[in-house]
């Protein structure tokens, strides 16, 4: 009860603080001593702090962890906690005090106002428009997008490779099983940084120069300066997208109808083929009737100087991105493969045999019986691997791919000298990605866990 009152008190203080901040400005800013000026910008977060403390108290009140069931004296209960908290606070105060002193001596002031200044550095590769006149916060956004691009590409490829290898490790075929096992043992036991270096400095450097490259698939060029692909130029792209959307909605309806038909009348209709046909026919119709047209901008060899050539037009994928994606996906795929293998092996043989004895075909056994159960075991550790991949993508800094760490914790830090602010922003970014995915995962686990009666 005491905890609950305390919790509501904190919630109230937090809300009041939030309102005061919105309408009157920061009231705590005058309270901080000179030496703790550094904490000023952090005071924006005080309502969050109050709310989280309130939340902790509320949770504690539900656990009803009281002196009675701990079964010991009041001193034994409170003194370790007091010591622990005071050590943490003392360390924090010691560090902030030193930081303030150091910054005062070096004439640096603390604050996030540099974010609006002109960045005045260039990025080799960016998804959005960026040039040196843009402010630092825009550089941050662009760099974050680059990081996310590598992460998403890596996740897609590592899932594909990982699932194939994981299933191959359980194959009845001796050769396939062993080559999959060797793949896993090989790539798992070499440090990721070395793999990135290998791809970037050794393997991709063996590619031909732009002028010597022979076309791959007719119109794409894999050269030492990157991978050049044709760009799509759409007319009336929105109509095409609408048609795809319509096809997806239609498929959802058909699946719903098919499930109903199966449950009520026991009829099976080939849902997969029907969906495939709809997904192909509807968008194709827009080409014929809707005025949608698609052109390709094919990369063309262009001479810059006597010996220097590049391809102009189309989409250019820089070698850094290729090396990074290759290394990340090959490395993480070994872990994903192990997760997949463990998941499938975790399903007891009886399930498979029971399903087979009901007359399901091997494909149906896999799809309807094994996979839904195996996914429960596979998904949580695989998400962990995805998180690892996202964190490992920060190794991009080692081969100068402009990701968050290189651009922000590297170039921007060098230019502004704001070590504390920049490193903490970078860390907080990764931390919030991790925590968000972890929270999502916990929610998903709760959703799919076996509800025991």
């Amino acid at each position: 009860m005491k905890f609950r009152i305390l919790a509501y008190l904190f919630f109230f203080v937090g809300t009041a603080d939030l309102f005061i901040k919105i309408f009157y400005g920061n009231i705590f800013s005058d309270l901080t001593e000179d030496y703790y000026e550094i904490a000023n910008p952090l005071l924006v977060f005080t309502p969050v702090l109050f709310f989280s403390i309130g939340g902790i108290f509320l949770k504690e009140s539900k656990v009803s962890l009281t002196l009675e069931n701990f079964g010991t004296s009041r001193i034994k209960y409170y003194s370790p906690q007091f010591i622990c908290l005071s050590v943490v606070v003392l360390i924090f105060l010691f560090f902030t005090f030193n930081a303030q002193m150091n910054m005062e001596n070096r004439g640096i002031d603390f604050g996030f106002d540099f974010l609006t200044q002109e960045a005045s550095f260039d990025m080799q590769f960016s998804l959005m428009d960026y040039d040196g006149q843009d402010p630092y916060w825009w550089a941050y956004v662009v760099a974050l997008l680059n990081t996310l691009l590598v992460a998403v590409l890596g996740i897609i490829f590592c899932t594909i490779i990982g699932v194939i290898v994981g299933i191959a490790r359980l194959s009845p075929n001796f050769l396939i099983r062993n080559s999959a096992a060797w793949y896993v043992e090989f790539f798992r036991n070499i440090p990721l940084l070395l793999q990135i270096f290998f791809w970037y400095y050794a393997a991709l450097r063996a590619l031909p120069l732009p002028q010597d490259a022979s076309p791959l698939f007719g119109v794409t060029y894999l050269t030492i300066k990157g991978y050049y692909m044709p760009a799509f130029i759409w007319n009336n792209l929105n109509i095409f997208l609408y048609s795809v959307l319509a096809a997806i909605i239609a498929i959802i309806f058909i699946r719903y109808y098919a499930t109903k038909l199966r449950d009520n009348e026991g009829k099976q209709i080939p849902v997969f083929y029907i969906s495939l046909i709809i997904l192909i026919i509807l968008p194709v119709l827009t080409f014929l009737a809707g005025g949608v047209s698609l052109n390709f901008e094919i990369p063309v060899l262009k001479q810059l100087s006597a010996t220097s050539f590049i391809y102009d037009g189309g989409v250019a994928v820089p070698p850094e991105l290729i090396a990074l994606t290759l290394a990340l996906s090959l490395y993480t795929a070994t872990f994903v493969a192990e997760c997949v293998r463990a998941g499938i092996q975790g399903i007891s043989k009886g399930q498979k045999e029971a399903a087979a004895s009901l007359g399901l075909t091997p494909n149906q056994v896999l799809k309807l019986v094994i996979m839904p159960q195996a996914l429960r075991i596979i998904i949580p550790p695989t998400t962990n691997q995805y998180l690892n991949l996202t964190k490992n993508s920060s190794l991009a800094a080692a081969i100068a791919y402009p990701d968050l760490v290189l651009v922000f914790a590297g170039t921007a830090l060098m230019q502004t000298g704001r070590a504390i602010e920049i490193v903490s922003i970078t860390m907080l970014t990764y931390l919030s990605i991790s925590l968000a995915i972890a929270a999502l995962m916990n929610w998903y686990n709760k959703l799919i866990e076996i509800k025991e009666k």
Partner: protein
Amino acid sequence: MNKFTFLRSDRSNIQLVLITGTFLITISILDVFLNSFFRLNLISFLPSKVSFLTPFIIGMIGLNLIRIEYSGNKFLDILNKNINTSNFNAALTLLIIFLIFKAIPPSLSWMILDANISGDTKEACTGTGACWTYIKVWFRRFMYGMYPNEQHWRINTAFLLVIGLGTFGLFATEKMKKFLALYYVVIYPIIAFLIIYYLISGGYFGLEWIETGAWGGLSLTFIVSFFCLIFCFPLGMILALGRRSNLPAVRYVSIGYIEFWRGVPLITVLFMSSVMFPMFLPEDFFMDKLVRVIIAITLFEGAYCAEVIRGGLQSLPRGQYDAAKSLGMGYWKMHIFVILPQALKLVIPGICNTFLALVKDTPLIFVVGLAELAGMLALAKTNPKWLGFAMEGYIFAAIIFWIICYAMSKYSYNLEEKYKTDR
């Protein structure tokens, strides 16, 4: 369907089928073998596209022919069961065999046949293959970094001493066994630190002082991972106990710590240790970069270690706690004598995996300017006298790391097997 019985293989025509099938498979494999090893093309009279696919088609027909259930031939049955269960599997089998045959000659000739190892300069490398001369010349740099050549015995002696002290536990008598934990957690780290400090760093006993900037190569990898390893274990233990504690403040501090370090990439932690951490220290207080990096990695890996140990603590049945409490043991007594010995035994494989990850993470210290193996490779690669040997360098480093990590993972697997039977 009975029309094609003469093509169906079963036990009645087993002799004929077996001979034909084996013949076809042999031809297909022989063709690929000759093609890749001796550049001969047996079927060059066919048009190129057909000739490209012929071995595959012939092999598929052969494998299809010898697929006989319960043939009575033991060897054939084993073969069919393992590599030839269905058409799909047969195709994959053939593809893998062909791939191996295609991949062996170029890699063999690059690695060994056309490679050079003699001589001391770049000019000695005349072959088209790898230039192992480069590795030979730079070997000492890759192992010891910029450490002066005549002082390398110090590093070797220090490592031998540390390893020797580490094996102390193997010879301990029954009487000494109870002090082993104390020895490994407290005494051994201190002795190891003193050995490495006095012997490798020097400055005392007439040994020349060698600053940490000169340390490097594989020995630095070992030093960093060794220290992180022995320090992060106690830290992880304390954090794991904290996270399982009944005291809310202690628990939330531990949770916050663990989740924070697990949420950020190591590279930002290293950046923090090199550019941000000096700002947090008093002005006249200088801390060596290597020490800062070791502290950062220890704090980072400690969080991972804590999660592994927590798993072990959670898997212990409640009865163990209750039994210990009913004997009148307090918190510390209960954990030291009852809970931790059992829990730690359970998590040995997990801890091994954490250490494996730690060893694989150490090359990252390259980004803050410490030249361990990856850093030395980057240095050697840009040396104007030795340009263009990146491939050899990285393959060399990959082999070394692979051997270390593979040995560790096998060892952890053995430990897992060993302790599995106990419970």
